[in-house]
């Protein structure tokens, strides 16, 4: 990498959109993961032409470029492991078009998910692939991570909503991928390739997304189980019978205790809770799905409580799940919640077993873990709670992560459901995808022959995530 020409960067994006003092570089070296590594400059392009000029410059001088949305990724995707230029895309934040007749909208990548939904709401439609972090996550970051959320069971992940996009390649060329139409069979589906590409193939400068009508009716209930295995069986039964729920969430006993301890929300003290929700334009249809789910859950020992159409009641029911992430960060005064082994997906029939396995592995390795997630999509979330100041905790975490992924792969699960790979899940990813990694590398080389785009991630990330970069925590004891 040649020395950065800061004046050149300023000439491209304007002097007010370049930062290179150590304070800014330190902050932009972090995201929501455990990793940190500072870039050499942070640059905020405002137009596609500026992105093109920046990439041309970087490509000629072999300088890493790390596209960045809001830095809410949990696996170190935007941590500049080899330095270079962080491309903060949040200035390209215009909602360009909302086309109701043709059912698409066009946005720049820095648009915040919640802002897009605020703009769509008056038209009676919404963008459904929303992650829990929608108040901060950018559309660019969601596409590059293939984000999804609590309603993915019905509406799918980001990839289901992306119709087309404009992308700047490593050499500065601008290309258009996909089409604005609902269907397309015109060659390789390259827009799909960019979904989940984690900034390694090109910089997305515009996305065309589809949306769906806001349902008129939505109802939610809580199903209580005295055994985690029963809850797991109920998930398989509901999904296997094709019950069309818009949400199916699992909360295990560790998670229930965490929420009740931290916030006193009074969640029922049971072994597992399933939150079920259905939505639609016709009340009878919503009732029908929920009734089908109730019957199947009860067959497996569940008790349906608090079913409600009232938005306030629904919000109350969902509060426990919503507050889970913050509750975990207040679990105890010595443990913090780290984003590790955070979002595997497993077959429905393995949900309960996976949850038990997670607890068993955590205990064996001296860390605390919980199991919850969008089980209607097979997604199992967890966090590792530990005393980050102790070296022993990190050894335990390293081993727990390894064992968990070995188990997940053994039952036909996958390393990440929605948060992506970045640095912290790279070794598990490499093991899982061993036979397709040569092809992935060839694809990467075709798009980015000089390897300037977010280098050192995915298949190129170090095997040991603990030593891959400096950690954001200091383990001194």
């Amino acid at each position: 990498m040649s020395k950065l020409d800061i004046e050149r960067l300023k000439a491209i994006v304007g002097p007010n959109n370049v930062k290179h003092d150590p304070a800014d570089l330190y902050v932009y070296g972090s995201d929501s993961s455990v990793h940190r590594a500072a870039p050499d400059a942070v640059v905020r392009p405002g137009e596609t032409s500026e992105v093109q000029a920046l990439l041309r410059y970087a490509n000629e001088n072999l300088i890493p470029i790390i596209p960045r949305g809001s830095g809410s990724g949990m696996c170190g995707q935007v941590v500049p492991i080899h330095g270079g230029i962080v491309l903060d895309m949040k200035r390209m934040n215009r909602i360009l078009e909302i086309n109701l007749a043709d059912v698409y909208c066009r946005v720049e990548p820095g648009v915040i998910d919640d802002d897009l939904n605020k703009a769509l709401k008056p038209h009676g439609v919404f963008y459904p692939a929303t992650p829990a972090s929608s108040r901060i996550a950018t559309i660019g970051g969601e596409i590059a991570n293939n984000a999804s959320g609590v309603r993915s069971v019905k509406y799918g992940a980001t990839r289901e909503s992306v119709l087309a996009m404009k992308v700047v390649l490593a050499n500065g060329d601008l290309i258009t991928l996909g089409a604005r139409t609902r269907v397309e069979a015109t060659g390789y589906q390259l827009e799909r390739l960019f979904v989940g590409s984690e900034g390694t193939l090109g910089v997305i400068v515009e996305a065309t997304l589809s949306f769906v009508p806001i349902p008129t009716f939505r109802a939610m209930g809580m199903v209580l189980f005295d055994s985690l295995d029963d809850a797991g069986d109920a998930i398989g039964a509901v999904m296997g019978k094709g019950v069309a729920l818009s949400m199916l969430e699992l909360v295990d006993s560790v998670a229930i205790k965490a929420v009740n301890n931290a916030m006193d929300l009074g969640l029922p003290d049971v072994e597992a809770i399933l939150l079920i929700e259905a939505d639609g334009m016709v009340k009878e249809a919503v009732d029908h799905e929920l009734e089908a789910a109730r019957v199947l859950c009860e067959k497996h020992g569940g008790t349906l409580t608090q079913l409600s159409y009232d938005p306030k009641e629904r919000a109350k029911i969902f509060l426990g799940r919503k507050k889970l992430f913050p509750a975990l960060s207040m679990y105890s005064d010595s443990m913090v919640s780290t984003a590790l082994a955070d979002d595997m997906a497993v077959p429905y029939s393995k949900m309960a077993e996976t949850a038990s396995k997670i607890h068993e592995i955590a205990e064996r390795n001296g860390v605390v873990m919980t199991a919850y997630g969008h089980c209607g999509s097979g997604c199992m979330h967890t966090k590792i709670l530990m005393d980050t100041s102790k070296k022993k905790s990190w050894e335990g975490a390293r081993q727990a992560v390894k064992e968990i992924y070995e188990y997940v792969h053994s039952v036909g699960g996958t390393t990440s459901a929605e948060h992506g790979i970045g640095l912290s899940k790279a070794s598990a990813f490499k093991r899982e995808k061993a036979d397709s990694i040569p092809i992935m590398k060839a694809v990467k080389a075709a798009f980015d022959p000089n390897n300037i785009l977010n280098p050192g991630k995915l298949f190129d990330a170090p095997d040991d995530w603990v030593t891959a970069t400096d950690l954001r925590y200091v383990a001194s004891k």
Partner: protein
Amino acid sequence: MEFERLKKWEYKLNACIRCGYCYEFCPVYRSTRWETDSPRGKLILLSGLLHGEIEASDETTDKVFSCLYCKQCEGVCSSGIPFTEILSDARADLVDLGIDPTGTISYNESSHCAMCLSCVRACPHEARVLDENRVVIDPTACQSCGICLDVCPSINTRLGKEFDAGPEMLQKQAVEFLSAAEKPAAKAIVFACNWSNVPGLVTSQIDSSMQQPDPEYKVLVTACAGRLPARVILSALEHNAWGVLVNGCPEDECEHHGSREAAKRVAAVQKLLGEVGVNPRRVQYMELSRGDPQTFERKVNEFMDEIRKLGPPFQHGDQP
């Protein structure tokens, strides 16, 4: 030991899950859009200072001393981080190290101080004190609330940085909105304190071709309602505003005694308007607790209904 006070917050610095949920609520971040200026960014910097990973350079300390203490971030924080308490301790540590604080800290622009001590009396945080015949500012106590801005008869008090929440910037934005030819419907300005109201759609922009019908009013966020000078309210009226609504938090919730000041100031403006034959109802003050956008919208709509009935000022024999 360096950063002795900050050290006791190490657990909290680690407990921040770096979700960034605090971004949209931070007036400093909203103004610059650099992540370093957000609460999350500042906590990262403090972590770096504590662990010797970055130096207490001018840039770093300027960030640490740039905060309007609106505490919105604490209200929305995922991890219950007492952001301003941590920041205040870090500031005290930095002052012990001999740094010269900049950022948003208040200062006196010139030495032409009348020594009336109005600012010393007005400061709710005891940051301005009389020391050997001059007013000195304690940078570890100043919360940049701006209450001192409008009390100085010599117009000598200043905040280091305003981040779009300063009186001049608010006045400029209000005048721009009221005078813009493409916004014929523009009628009113709502000055909302950052604590009681955070306007939506703050981070993305809608293409102008898709804008909703011309807005009749504009919400401008002042860090604390108490820092809004009367001249800014009057300037909006001079530029054809039909009305001005000032929104602060309930007195017992205000961290800076700002709502009391704001209510007093609005009453003074109303009295003045009455004296010159303008209906005092054109300028109103309302209190609102945090996190209640529905009531905010309802109260603004009620105000707009009243203002519409009054019509444009100075045209209909506007009598009180």
